[in-house]
């Protein structure tokens, strides 16, 4: 039977691993290649990199990080952040990434999803969605709104509508990040995750808020997520991936236990 995936997320800024809370106050906490190797050895099922530098110089450094990671870890990994064209996708895929994640650029230009799926296959294209809770309205009936540009700009787009639309456009997976929960270590946005996961027929990775293995258990069961993204909980060594998986297995969740 298919295992639920545990996916460490590495935010990279100018070639350094970094972490913030609710998308702000980022501090550097190490070398992304070393961190990726450690998580690979500790049993990560996949790794996600977000390049949070926007400059051309930072971009080159990121490609170099991707290349180094691809030489030493042999599990799938994806790269997101600043991907705005099929050419950007090609660059990270050729450097060794299995998947690319598009976010703001896909909101501005949805045909990017279709173009990417056509060029590399749907399995390569992850739609990253940053979501904030808002008052339900005619425009945002679900009360969950898509925000872009690192959480700074509201779009007036309903998160549930966008998830379904992205699936129809050819996205192979959705990485669903709750900005309200991001970095809080108080648990995932279960309601949002369950709504999106029940709506689409592609895998959903829940993101934002993991502080304990039990939080992860809840998002994989009540939240119906196919995978859980984790960051602070492992970056600060509160738990190892092995401990998280041990907890999930003891609660009856199928995870990959041998690596």
């Amino acid at each position: 039977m298919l295992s639920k995936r545990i996916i460490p997320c590495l935010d990279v800024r100018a070639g350094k691993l970094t972490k913030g809370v609710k998308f702000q106050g980022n501090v550097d906490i190490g070398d992304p290649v070393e961190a990726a190797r450690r998580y690979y050895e500790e049993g990560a099922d996949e790794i996600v990199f977000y390049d949070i530098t926007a400059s051309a110089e930072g971009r080159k450094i990121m490609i170099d990080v991707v290349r180094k990671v691809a030489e030493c870890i042999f599990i799938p990994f994806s790269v997101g952040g600043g991907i705005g064209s099929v050419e950007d996708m090609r660059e990270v895929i050729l450097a060794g990434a299995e998947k690319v994640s598009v976010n703001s650029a896909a909101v501005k230009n949805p045909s990017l999803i279709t173009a990417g799926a056509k060029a590399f296959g749907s399995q390569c294209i992850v739609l990253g969605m940053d979501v904030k809770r808002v008052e339900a309205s005619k425009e945002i009936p679900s009360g969950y709104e898509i925000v872009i540009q690192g959480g700074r700009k509201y779009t007036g787009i309903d998160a549930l509508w966008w998830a379904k639309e992205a699936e129809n456009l050819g996205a192979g997976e959705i990485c669903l990040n709750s900005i309200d929960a991001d970095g809080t270590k108080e648990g995932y946005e279960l309601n949002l995750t369950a709504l999106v996961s029940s709506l689409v027929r592609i895998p959903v990775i829940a993101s934002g808020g993991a502080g304990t293995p039990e939080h992860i258990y809840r998002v994989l069961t009540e939240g119906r997520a196919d995978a859980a993204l984790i960051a602070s909980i492992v970056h600060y060594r509160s738990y190892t991936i092995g401990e998280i998986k041990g907890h999930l297995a003891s609660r009856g969740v199928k995870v990959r236990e041998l690596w």
Partner: protein
Amino acid sequence: MIGIVDYRAGNLTSVARALTFLGIPWEITDDPAVLERARGIIFPGVGAAGEAMANLKEKGLDVCLREWFSRGKPILGICLGTQVIFGYSEEDDTPCLGIVPGMVKRFDHGLSIGGRPLKIPHMGWNNVEFVKKHPIFTGIPEGAEFYFVHSYYPVPQDETNVVGRTYYGKKFCSAVAVGNLVALQFHPEKSGRFGLRILSNFCRMAGEIC
């Protein structure tokens, strides 16, 4: 040297990187003469069956692969490479190489797990039940998992060719072996330590490492 067949089906460099990590020489090529010199052939691929077959035919690689198979040259199929080894694929209604009798079918949208509809593609880590002892699985424990990404799965005509099975809404064949050919539906190059072991087992079968 291990030859990696280049037929423009996705990114072949991840297989090459894994071989480099294992210290095994390789060449990515579409040149039959270079592949002829290789001790073993890896036939990977990501993409669609129709285009894959068209590209193979354009380079005459379809004829070569059939011949290498009948001469007993070690061949390792991966994912799409595995699928086109069979006679026919439902994907784009494509007649394929016919090296192993059987066909390739799409996961039925009606399948469900625990009352919830199955998500397609089948993407992530899953077990392979080793239904037969085979050197490709040497050193790999029962319960090991491998990385899958696919919407279609092989259905061999001859059950005796099946060496591995996986459950996803139903049991399907995830590994076949016929003579010196091994074909896997999962990605050993993305399956961590056990995946690397499968690649080194293949290179040992091919005499590239001893």
